[in-house]
């Protein structure tokens, strides 16, 4: 067991007869890990288990080697921004963060300094002394994030942190996650905004009905999905000729001309073989400009494994 990892060992959680998560075994390295899945798939249950807000019915969890039932050690390392959009009554943004930092044992001056830094990171300094109750949805998300990062945790757990954020703030928030990740920390994000998962994730976990359906790096997971041919987009000068040429290959099941007439979409059952053959084809006079996989995205994997209809 790697002490720098977050591990779930055969973890199940039931709410009476209702399944929360079942037989989850994971070993998550540092970096940005995205947790995706439809409503009720068990994402929040997994996060709450990790933070000790609920206990597993079976199995064990270690966060950097620490059991969630040990809050004194755990929460010096973990910051959790939950999905609950509720705050202690009557507090301003600054008071909210500062008062909870005091629980960590920081002195008043330390708490003040850390609060100011966290507020600055989420660009809420100007609104810090206003009541949280008067904040917009996006501001409430940011103050929650500030509270989670204020004590500089090694593990940042975020449940739908991008909800309600405008595009600019969303981009800034994603940059913040990248910065945390680049410092060797864990950023564990539950989200349903799939294209952003692609942009930031080092690895992802796909859940459905309480089970982990897939986990790992997106390309690895995509290559394991044999039912759906891999899609490759090739931009070239002679798409018609290229289409007929690649269609001669046995493992190519479909070739579509791009609507703009400047490329083709190839569906193949053997991506590795196709790329090898393409090296030779590229030597022919098709004017190939670029080759890129078209469906090794979380969105595609999600659709293939869970189904489009269940996507929000």
């Amino acid at each position, binding site marked *: 067991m790697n002490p720098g990892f977050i591990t779930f060992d055969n973890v199940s959680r039931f709410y009476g007869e209702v399944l929360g998560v079942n037989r989850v075994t994971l070993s998550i390295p540092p970096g940005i890990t995205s947790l995706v899945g439809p409503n009720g798939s068990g994402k929040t249950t997994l996060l709450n288990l990790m933070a000790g*807000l609920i206990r597993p019915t079976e199995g064990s969890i270690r966060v950097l080697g620490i059991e969630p039932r040990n809050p004194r050690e755990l929460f010096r390392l973990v910051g959790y921004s939950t999905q609950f959009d509720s705050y202690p009554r009557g507090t301003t943004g600054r008071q909210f963060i500062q008062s*909870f930092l*005091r629980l960590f*044992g920081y002195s008043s001056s330390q708490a003040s300094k850390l609060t100011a830094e966290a507020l600055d990171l989420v660009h809420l300094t100007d609104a810090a002394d206003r009541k949280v109750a008067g904040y917009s949805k996006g501001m409430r998300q940011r103050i929650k994030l500030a509270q989670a990062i204020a004590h500089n945790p090694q593990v940042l757990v975020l449940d739908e942190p991008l909800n309600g954020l405008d595009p600019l703030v969303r981009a800034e928030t994603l940059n913040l996650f990248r910065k945390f990740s680049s410092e060797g920390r864990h950023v564990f994000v539950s989200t349903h905004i799939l294209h952003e998962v692609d942009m930031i994730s080092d690895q992802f976990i796909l859940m459905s009905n309480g089970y982990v359906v897939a986990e790992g790096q997106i390309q690895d997971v995509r290559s394991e999905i044999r039912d759906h041919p891999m899609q490759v987009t090739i931009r070239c000068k002679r798409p018609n000729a290229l289409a007929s040429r690649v269609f001669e290959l046995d493992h190519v099941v479909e070739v579509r001309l791009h609507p703009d007439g400047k490329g083709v979409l190839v569906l193949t059952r053997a991506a590795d073989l196709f790329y090898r053959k393409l090296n030779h084809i590229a030597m022919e006079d098709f004017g190939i400009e670029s080759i890129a996989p078209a469906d090794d995205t979380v969105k595609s994997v999600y659709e293939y494994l869970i189904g489009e209809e269940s996507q929000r």
Partner: protein
Amino acid sequence: MTPETTMAGLSGQLFAVVRIEIAKTFFSRRSLWIYLLALLPAALFFMNSIYAKREHARLAKIAIEHPVEKEALRSIRNGARLEDVVGLLGEPYRKTTYGFWSGQPPQRHERLVYFYTDGQVDVTLYFIDGVMRRTGQSGASQTLNQLLLVFANVFELYFLRLAIFFGCAGIFTNLFRGEMLDKSLHFYLLSPVPRPVIVAGKYVAGLLATAVIFSVSTALQFYAMFRGFDGEVVHEYLQSNGWSQIAAYMGVSMLACAAYGSIFLAAGLVAKNPTTIAALLLLWESVNAFIPGNLKMASIVFYLQSLCPIEPPPDMTIPPMLRSLVAPAESVDAFTGIAALAVISLLVLIASGIYSRKLEINYSAD
């Protein structure tokens, strides 16, 4: 930046929890009616003192204008004739006269009402056909001792059983249940504070708030009572056993907050609807007077009453047949009473601390 070692200990975390909670317990909207409950008897005693003072001044003024010997006033008996009374006391400061018919055949009678005062007591003499039939007495006749008995009754029947009980129910059940309903309890559970310390911190904050509110109210009730009396009377009382009685009542208020508080905090932690537990406890504490002998000792109010320094007069509103049932159990001494309440509070808090370790956040189920 690492936490300062001086603050890193459990006591520092406890203090931090208390700091967060204290504002909520003292200044929440819910606390308003608790202040009302607590301050109501003080307000009533205050109004009584104003009334008593005004009445005293009124009678003193009349006594100067219509002086009457106190002994002479006391010597008047039923059957005395009007001329003899007026001869002895002089003309009243006020009188009313009216006639009425009675008897068979109907005869006209005359009723006279004469008002005298010695400056302390307003005495009313009723005459029919010139013969005194009865007397009445009103005005600033209350003594401090009488008022202390009233206070003892109010304290045991209203203050302990209703004001402190419901005040503690309002504040302590809300410490956990309120945050579960607000969906903000998880902020505590996501901090590095051991859960029993959160329980203890919330309890201390609740206790500070209720103890201050109710013990200050107790002191205010005494102050309000004293306002109705001359400084000498108050000084004499305070020098005899007044201070110890005031301290004892304030202490009982605090102990009541400690004991009821621990139970209500546990109720808010464990039960989805703590009012059910509060209602059952209220029922048990209310019927305590009617339960036999040593079974009374299984209630909080028994120990609290044992610690009250003034024994209130028996409740004459209880029907005679039931009165035999309310014979009090043997009171316990102060040490036993305090120790019993402390043990009850501590045990309930320990149980709450243990339970809190298993607490899960599942707001949708709450």
